[in-house]
């Protein structure tokens, strides 16, 4: 699920960035630092959308670095158990398959793949129905439901299922 929230971060800036463009430098450094990161608490930071306010800088003794407390608005993506996501398959093996829904990685183990789909090894390992009408392989687009998340301080990993109504392949890469 996406959220638009306000976060705060202490930015350390090298004295060489001080000058007329201090604020711009601060913002671009912020974007470089936080976009694409993940915190277990808030999820993946997708994009910084604005600066709320930049506090007074504090000069670090000995180094000359200055720390600015920056409040910024950003879009975050946080997956939840039970959430339905659309994802792209990145890897298929006999244990199941991995898929990416934006920044989040999801693993679907083979017992959560419908029973009528069988693993086919080979150049392009895949799961296929007996009549061959549905195939899950690398780059397939799959709608899945998250049934578990592992949230570390800097990492979120999910496991999902496609064994439910309206889940499964939503396009066929072979047909495109």
């Amino acid at each position, binding site marked *: 699920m996406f959220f638009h929230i306000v976060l705060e971060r202490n930015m350390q800036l090298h004295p060489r960035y001080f000058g007329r463009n201090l604020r711009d430098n601060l913002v671009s450094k912020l974007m470089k630092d936080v976009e694409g990161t993940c915190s277990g608490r808030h999820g993946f930071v997708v994009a910084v959308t604005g600066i709320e306010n930049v506090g007074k800088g504090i000069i670090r003794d000995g180094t000359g670095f200055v720390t600015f407390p920056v409040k910024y608005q950003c879009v975050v993506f946080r997956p939840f158990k039970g959430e339905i996501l659309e994802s792209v398959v990145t*890897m298929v*093996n*006999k*244990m*199941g398959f*991995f898929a990416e829904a934006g920044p989040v*990685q999801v*693993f679907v*183990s*083979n*017992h*959560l793949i419908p029973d009528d789909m069988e693993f086919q*090894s080979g150049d392009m*390992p895949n799961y296929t129905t007996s009549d061959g009408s549905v195939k899950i392989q690398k780059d397939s687009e799959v709608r899945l439901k998250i*049934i*578990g*998340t*592992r949230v570390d301080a800097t990492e979120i*990993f999910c*496991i999902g*299922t496609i*064994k*439910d109504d309206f889940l499964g392949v939503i396009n066929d890469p072979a047909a495109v």
Partner: protein
Amino acid sequence: MIEPYNKLVKLAARAFYDDLTSKGDNQPKTGRSDNRGIAVVVLDALTRRQWVREEDLAKDLKLHTKQLRRTLRFFEEEKIITRDHRRETAKGAKIYSAAVAATADAATGKEGEEKVKLHTHSYCCLDYAQIYDVVRYRLHRMKHKLKDELENKNTVQEYICINCGKRYNALDALRLISFEDEDFHCERCNGKLEVESDKFAAQDGGDGGDGDENARRRRREKLKDMLQKMEVQLKPLIDQLGRVKDLPVPEFGTLQAWEARASAAGRAANGENSGDSKSHLGYNGAPMPYSGDTKVIVDFNGTEGKGEGVKSETDSTSLKVLPPWMITSGMNLTKEQRGEVKQEIKMDGTSTSTAAQYTDEKKSTIVHDDKNIQDEYIKAYYAALLKKQHEMEEAAKNPQDGNGADDPSSSTSNRQVGIKTKREEDDDGTEWEEAPVRGNGGYKVDLNVEAVAPAEDEDDEDDVDWEEG
């Protein structure tokens, strides 16, 4: 229409809310405070009502208002009932009472409560449409949950290293991928990982050290059992759902709409269009749109001992006998329309033979008629009619008619004779054949029959005379 839905409610109540105890009672259960089953009683009571004031319901059920409220609040959360609360004066209460009186069922006493000044009154009503959905959803969820667990749908797959016995689960998957092959590998010893449940299933009943696995198997058995029991025990409910599926849903609308409708219906039923409906709305108020209409089926022909009289009556319906006061000189009428006395006489030729037939017929028909009240009624009607006709004919100074004049039952037999004569006509194949044609009403045809025509004309004229006199 509402009955199948009520049955659904009753079944659902017994299936899901049977052992419901009102929440919040922390005190140990004594026999007295054990109020299981209240929910069923309340729901049953609601199936016999429409919108009902909660105090009234409590009184009817001999429950404490608080206790009832707690139950009702629960059902509201369960989306079984809709409730409405409003602050109202005595007048507002009166509107409701009037509406209640207009419904056939809930005719409980509520006088005396109308002196309430300004109180918040709560009303409740079953929400059939929603109940149908809620019950279906509940069944779906129950089945789904059991099946999911049975099929390990939402369980996290576990893996174990064959070498060192280290355990992993699917959430570790990212770390376990090896790029050498498509298997998962142990982080510690790089051994091959196996899916755990498969492994244990393989050494079924082996070293037996794993109580965990036994517990899981027991759990599976229990789940299967529950699923099976569910199918059996909830079958009546599911069947009822199927029965109700294509029926229109009883809808009472909001409290206001319902009140307006109920009192309007009540007023209409009492033939009253305006004014204070309260005093006139008795216990015989109008049935509500969904409480079912009274159907009256009058079975005219269904009776077994159907007499000849009835038969003749139905046979002759094609030609209606006009009441004398409708016959005027200008009308082009057949004899049958006037009553066919004259015709019969002509056919038989003499008055005596007609009379004989009259009496014979009369006897037979009377025997039959005794069986049937309807026949009696018809007989009486025809008797009156015939009497009139005889009077007319007496006025026309027709001597033959004196015989049957005072015979009350001769009308039915009269019809009989009419039929009989028609049969005779067929047999004879004489000029009388034209009688039915004439009966169907052409004036020209009438003229062709010479023997009859003058009599009819005379009759017409006499008729006028008699009416004028």
